């Protein structure tokens, strides 16, 4: 008998994955900008964190435009972590744009265009706009899923105020976001009609029962009055780039077909700059300079660097943070050598923060934080062994071993990672140094061996 397999319907609630820097929650400074040894996921690097804190204050102030900071240091010393820490402590309202140096090289867009777009993404404009919102208490929410598990869902949402009641038809996206927000009957919600953004205001008082189990953060609110649909003035932050895009689109019905915007004309940008300055003088808008973070900045070439020189002079430019792990090296696009692969004239404009290699104690602490983040329990000896590995090979390699060792441990039905598990993954996966060693020993038996070595000789 053939049983048709019904695919399991899984709603995307919130997928949280663990990234390389997801343990960073801030810079870990106290009010006097003094760094704490271990705080908010940050360990050690006291001097550079303090420096980053000063920069952070400058960004929050928002008066200084076009400053640039370079974070330089060896691989795996927390350069990206510091940048992420700055981003986290800035909060949601300040734009933070991160890109890697190699991202700007594209066939569809010139390098300088990609850089100017990145610059303009990092400048926010807070502006009042009137939008239509629906505000009401959920009476009923009904979602019909097709029996096969695939295909589009249809739904109905009944909302009410103290005066009226309306039924709404729901599309797929709206159903997804409603189930993501876990909206149920009795909740008071607002829906932004233009963007479809849902926010829960709380639960209605009329639904409050004495014996209901409620989270501590559940708020009770009154059922809204009057009409369901209202026009409200909301303040929101848009980036200069978004304003550029709105104004550069082909008007009329052609706008439906033009998906990507490509390059934006400089006249459009100038017009918008003038308009934004006008708004600011009239008090209609507020400019929030944000942060542009360029990782692996040595990947930029000479043209980009000279563009940066010029772009930093504009009073509408964000604070630029760059990171590099190179020493004295060739500037891309030239034959000149320069520190960090950055021309001297640009280096002259930079404040440079240096990071230094972690000590054994700090490495141990970082590994502990990562274990918590990745939900792996480590025995004391295993921890010491892993720290040794981290010191002798690299911190990144040691971090890689955490979750792999965790898996090995789980397969043998253990609860705590022992030294054996670490040993096992250490033998399974080579680190960089052992891999190079292996290469040297068995170079002759690899493919393209002869051509490779010839090329090596000439360089």
């Amino acid at each position, binding site marked *: 008998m053939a049983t048709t397999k019904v695919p399991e319907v899984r709603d995307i609630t919130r997928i949280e994955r663990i990234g390389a820097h997801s343990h960073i929650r801030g810079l870990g400074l106290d009010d006097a900008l003094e760094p704490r040894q271990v705080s908010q996921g940050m360990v050690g690097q006291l001097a550079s964190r303090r420096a980053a804190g000063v920069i952070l204050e400058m960004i929050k102030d928002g008066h200084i435009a076009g400053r640039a900071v370079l974070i330089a240091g060896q691989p795996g010393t927390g350069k990206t972590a510091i940048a992420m820490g700055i981003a986290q402590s800035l909060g949601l309202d300040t734009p933070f744009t991160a890109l890697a140096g190699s991202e700007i090289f594209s066939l569809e867009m010139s390098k300088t265009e990609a850089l100017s777009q990145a610059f303009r993404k990092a400048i926010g404009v807070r*502006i009042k*706009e009137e939008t239509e919102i*629906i505000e009401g208490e959920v009476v009923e929410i009904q979602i019909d899923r097709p029996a096969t598990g695939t295909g589009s869902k249809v739904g*109905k*949402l009944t909302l*009410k*105020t*103290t*005066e*009226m*009641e*309306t*039924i*709404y*038809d*729901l*599309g*797929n*996206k*709206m159903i997804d976001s409603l189930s993501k927000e876990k909206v149920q009957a009795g909740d008071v919600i607002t*829906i932004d*009609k233009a963007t*479809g953004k849902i926010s829960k205001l709380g639960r209605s008082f009329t639904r409050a029962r004495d014996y209901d189990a409620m989270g501590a953060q559940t708020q009770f609110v009154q059922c809204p009055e*009057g*009409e369901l649909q209202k026009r409200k003035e909301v303040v929101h932050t*848009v980036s200069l780039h*978004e*304003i550029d895009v*709105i*104004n550069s*689109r082909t*008007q009329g019905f052609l706008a439906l077909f033009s998906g990507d915007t490509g390059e934006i004309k400089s006249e459009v940008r100038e017009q*918008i700059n003038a*308009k934004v300055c006008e708004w600011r003088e009239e008090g*209609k808008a507020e400019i929030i300079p944000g942060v542009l973070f360029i990782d692996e900045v040595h990947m930029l070439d000479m043209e980009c660097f000279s563009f940066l020189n010029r772009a930093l002079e504009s009073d509408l430019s964000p604070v630029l943070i760059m990171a590099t792990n190179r020493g004295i090296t060739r500037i891309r696009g030239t034959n000149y050598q320069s520190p960090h692969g950055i021309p001297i004239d640009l280096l002259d404009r930079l404040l440079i923060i240096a990071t230094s290699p972690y000590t054994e104690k700090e490495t141990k602490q970082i590994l502990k934080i990562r274990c918590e983040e990745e939900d792996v329990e480590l025995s004391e000896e295993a921890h010491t062994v892993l720290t040794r590995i981290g010191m002798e090979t690299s911190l990144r390699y040691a971090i890689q071993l955490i979750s792999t060792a965790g898996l090995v441990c789980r397969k043998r039905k253990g609860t705590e990672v022992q030294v054996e598990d670490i040993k096992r993954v250490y033998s399974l996966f080579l680190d960089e140094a052992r891999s190079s060693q292996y290469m040297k020993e068995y170079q002759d038996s690899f493919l393209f061996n002869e051509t490779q070595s010839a090329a090596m000789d000439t360089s």
Partner: protein
Amino acid sequence: MAVHSWIDVLKLSKKTALVHDGKRKIHYLLTDGRELAEEYDLKTDELIVRKWRHKSPLGGQSSWQVEVGETLDFTASFDSDGIKESSSNPVFMRKDTKSSFQWRIRNLPYPKDVFSVSVVPSDRCVIIKTSNKKYYKKFSIPDLDRSQLPLDGSALSFTHANNTLIVSYKKPKEILSLEQELLKELKKLKGTAEGDVDCKTQ
């Protein structure tokens, strides 16, 4: 004085007229950048459609906002992803007659004594309420606002038949004379009979 200022605004605007499909269609481009489109019946000179469009502060163009006539909601078919009112809900539209402003709300299957319609002069609006808490609507009369005329509760009346609530407000004589004057002005505009007209909308 105030009555005249509105008609002066219209007179100063750039007008394009077009006679098509038994309707006289007029497009105004006001001096402040707003666009106004009106359609009149050729035989009876009744206003069929009046809609507005303005530039959003960020520079994008908003969709047409219908003041009089039926809302043609063809955009809804493009994004079925979002949220829209179910077709079983009451539909609110304005449809004027010669002598009064009139609003029709369809899909209201409740008896007449449920409804109450009143004028709130302080907010300059009319409120429709239902005692069974199913429908509530607060709306202003833009014609009166533009001419800065007061709202009068005695001019308001309503009837209910065939699941439709009809609210009427008798036009004051200032509005009637203004409309006469405007109509005379519009008839002087010679419109292209057929086909596309290039109007400066951008």
